[in-house]
């Protein structure tokens, strides 16, 4: 049973992480190739505090706060650069993050931080906490989507200049997206640190940033349910791949390529097409 709980907790963390990127890239259309940096900021903040004796749930707040603070800085940068320039800038953020962490002894340097205390309420408790976090974030995100901000995000994602012309305060909504998205990643990071109980610079690199972006894109950019589904599937995938361990990354890479080649609008698009066809025959 312990094994299933671990898998489920990982799944919940991945869903939270993917949902948080979905706010920035999906809703607001700002590509981020460096989202793992914010997972890392949350994880490090939470790990250090909880080693100092702060209860896990209390560390959530500074973990989200730190991630959102840095996220705000990156958001300000996103006001300056656009499209591919933004993609590469955010990629720079993740390299800067790991580069800085590697050289700081307080953050454990190359070795990372080990011996993060187990959550006081046990493995099942952590799973329940993670699920509650996902649920809270999900409700929040759905609320945003249905609000005026959701409409503003859509228009910015579609065409930034037209949005500005319509009188939408583009910088304010972009910053809001970064704030919400990076805070979510920070929360996921705090959970991650206490799930794995060991963190190092290699856990939050470029590859992790790409994996989470792949979850969002395979789910269908901007689609909440598609992203949840694909995050759950992709995070459980390595478990199924145990038998073909040697070819794991080969299959993963080809899967990414195949998904983009044959279903560029993701699970969400696939399902919609399926339903439309079913509806058409009626």
């Amino acid at each position, binding site marked *: 049973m312990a094994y299933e709980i671990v898998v489920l907790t990982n799944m919940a963390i991945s869903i939270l992480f993917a949902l948080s990127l979905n706010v920035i890239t999906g809703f607001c259309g700002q*590509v981020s190739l460096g989202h793992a940096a914010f997972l890392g900021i949350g994880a490090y903040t939470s790990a250090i505090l909880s080693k100092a004796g702060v209860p896990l749930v209390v560390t959530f707040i500074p973990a989200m706060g730190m991630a959102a603070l840095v996220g705000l800085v990156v958001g300000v*940068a996103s006001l*300056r*650069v*656009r*499209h*591919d*320039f933004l*993609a*590469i*800038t955010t*990629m*720079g*953020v993740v*390299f*800067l993050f*790991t*580069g*800085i962490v*590697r*050289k700081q002894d307080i953050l454990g340097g190359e070795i990372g931080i080990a011996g993060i205390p187990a959550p006081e309420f046990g493995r099942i408790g952590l799973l329940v906490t993670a699920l509650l976090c996902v649920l809270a974030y999900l409700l929040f995100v759905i609320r945003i989507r249905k609000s005026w901000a959701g409409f503003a995000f859509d228009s910015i994602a579609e065409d930034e200049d037209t949005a500005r012309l319509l009188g939408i305060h583009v910088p304010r909504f972009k910053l809001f997206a970064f704030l919400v998205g990076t805070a979510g990643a920070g929360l996921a990071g705090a959970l991650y640190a206490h799930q794995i109980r060991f963190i190092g610079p290699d856990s939050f690199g*470029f*590859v992790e940033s*790409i994996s989470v*972006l*792949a979850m969002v*894109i395979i789910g269908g*950019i901007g689609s909440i349910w598609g992203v949840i589904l694909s995050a759950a599937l992709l995070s459980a995938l390595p478990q199924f791949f145990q038998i073909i361990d*040697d*070819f*794991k*990354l*080969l299959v*993963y*890479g*080809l*899967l*990414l*390529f*195949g*998904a*983009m*080649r044959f279903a*560029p609008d993701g699970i969400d698009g696939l399902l919609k097409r399926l339903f439309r066809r079913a509806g058409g025959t009626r």
Partner: protein
Amino acid sequence: MLLIDLCIQGLIQGAIYALIALGLTLVYGLLRILHVAHAALFTLGGYVGVVVTNGSGSFLLALLTAMLIVGCVGMASYRVIYKPLLMRPPLIALIASIGVFIASEELFRLVFGAYGLSYTNPPLKGQVEILPGISLSHARILVVVLAVGLLSGMGWLAVHTRIGIAARATVVDPAMAASSGVNVETIRYASFFIGSAFAGAAGVMVSLLNNLVEPTMGAVPSYKALAIIVLGGLGSVRGALVASLALGVIEAFGTIYVGHILDRDSIAFAFLIMILMVRPQGLLARG
């Protein structure tokens, strides 16, 4: 003395970056796609270089074979990866490209083994003293000669030949070029061939300098080269060259002077972010 030494090391590294970044910037200019899988071609070049040199004993033959094979694989990558995705948002092609890159790293590991290959009898080992107190290996000098030769050859092609002029026209306005009788597809294949062949040459040279090729050797150059073409102003060939050399030198100095707080890769990206905040369109963007 240290200053001059660092400058020279930086420029040599910059020359390698330039060879890699050229293909990327050509592809970006034509297709508006960030071609991450380019780095896999660089790695492939390294492998072909080592295998052919060890097999035949001729380094020149290896270099030429690597450029030819990698160039052809580059054209195939356009046909298989990008051509079907041209009508999609660029993000889709980017993710597809990253997928191919991840898969190819694994493929190299499965085919050539995880520990990498090295030259049984490394060529061009001799040293030359170019300045009093500073000597360079023949291999390093060849890097510079090759980069200058290939890049100026390309520059000459772009200015003086029909296909070069057609290529530049296609970058500026594909529809207009096509309606003036330019075969845009030919230009794309040719650009992929040249850019990939140069990356293959860079791969051979890096494999010689390190006397090692390993499956992951493409990872760092691929991210760096993306930073370089962004820094230079996406699609600008001249900008990419300037940025390559600048980045090479800055890394050489940075690892000595700020190496205790930032590692080599983050120095490159810190520099990138600083420049982009001042000039969001890159150093030498086209109007």
